[in-house]
């Protein structure tokens, strides 16, 4: 447990050392969201329709982009070897890293999403559902992403390969997440979608650290 806390604190410290790091993930999210109206045109009714999809896709890309760093630097400088040799089970340390990743790249997205939703003229209620769906969904992104990051470790061109592996796995989260907001906007109630998202999250918390650990051991061999 101490080692778990130590690793979360270390990763947060590293993120804080580069003050800009957390902020830039956020701004990436903002910019991607803003690109769509630029590409598509400014019509409000249309923008409102595509808003949940765009926001979720952007969140997904922002979370994915920071995955590359998740294990790569630890691998390069030998820290990962040391983690594998530590008496604490590797899966615990991996969970710590995933938690830190979510704190620095998922949580800020959840908090920023309503502001961007305003740009697309979403109602206050829809914004609430959007936040809730992201709150349940972004940890899934970090968890699944950890598996992908571990699998592509030390593989050159890993960044792109990573997205190839991870994006298909993100699709259920995307469908339920964006679906929840759309269902709410259409007046259908978002409960069903949200509870499915919750189930996915439970599944992820249970299995992802284990799978990521197995993948890391392969990369180290």
């Amino acid at each position, binding site marked *: 447990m101490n080692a778990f806390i*130590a690793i979360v604190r270390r990763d947060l410290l590293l993120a804080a050392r580069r003050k800009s790091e957390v902020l830039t993930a956020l701004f990436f999210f903002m910019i991607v969201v803003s690109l769509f109206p630029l590409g598509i045109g400014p019509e409000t009714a249309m923008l409102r329709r595509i808003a949940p999809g765009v926001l979720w896709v952007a969140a997904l890309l922002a979370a994915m982009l920071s995955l590359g760093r998740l294990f790569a630097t630890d691998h390069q400088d030998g820290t990962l070897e040391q983690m594998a040799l530590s008496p604490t089970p590797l899966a615990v340390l991996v969970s710590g890293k995933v938690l830190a990743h979510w704190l620095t790249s998922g949580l800020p997205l959840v908090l920023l999403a309503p502001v961007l939703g305003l740009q697309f003229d979403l109602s206050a209620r829809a914004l609430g559902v959007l936040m809730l769906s992201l709150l349940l969904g972004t940890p899934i992104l970090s968890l699944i992403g950890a598996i992908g990051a571990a699998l592509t470790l030390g593989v050159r061109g890993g960044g792109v390969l990573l997205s190839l592996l991870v994006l298909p796995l993100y699709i259920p989260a995307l469908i339920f997440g964006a679906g929840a907001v759309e269902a709410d906007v259409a007046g259908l109630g978002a409960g069903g979608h949200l509870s499915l998202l919750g189930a996915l999250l439970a599944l992820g918390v249970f299995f992802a650290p284990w799978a990521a650990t197995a993948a890391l051991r392969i990369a180290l061999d």
Partner: protein
Amino acid sequence: MLQAHGLACDRGDRRLFSGVDFVVPAGEWLQVEGPNGAGKTSLLRIVAGLAGAAEGHLEWEGRPVAEARDEFHARLLYLGHAPAIKDDLSALENLQIAAAVAGRPLDEATALAALRRIGLAGREDLPSRVLSQGQKRRVALARLLCSQARLWVLDEPFVALDVAAVDQLCNILDEHLARGGLLLFTSHQAVHLAGSGGNLRLGR
């Protein structure tokens, strides 16, 4: 006591070595020697459990390592070619955090003392990125001073160090051996350690 029985290692379609047996009793050292590419690094990684052996097995205190891997890891310190230093953290932070992650938090005074002793006084708070090659190695070596592990496995610990640092490191190794520690290391240079130990030659 660490014992290897008939270790073999394959890389690609090449057998690097086979039938490697050795014994390291408590308080002794073993230097692995051999030309470049003989498989020294590969052997050390097998011992540390970072890579699998094609044949053979290891015993620690008379028990096969495979049966009690966690226990073995708790008594092991491995330093490889890569120094496990975070470029963005200072030497002090690197040392403290590595210890905390390994499950043995370190207080600042001890960490500072270790850095001083290894010759990094005045550089404790610089980000490691700006340190010179040799200074980075020293940060990694400072881990030795804070370690409670009995078995040290060091891959070319003397590389990039200046003469003073080499002497200092020898002292540290001697102290470890005197405490009854075990040491397995590689080096292309001749090394003068007190106490007894042996050599293992790999390669043709």
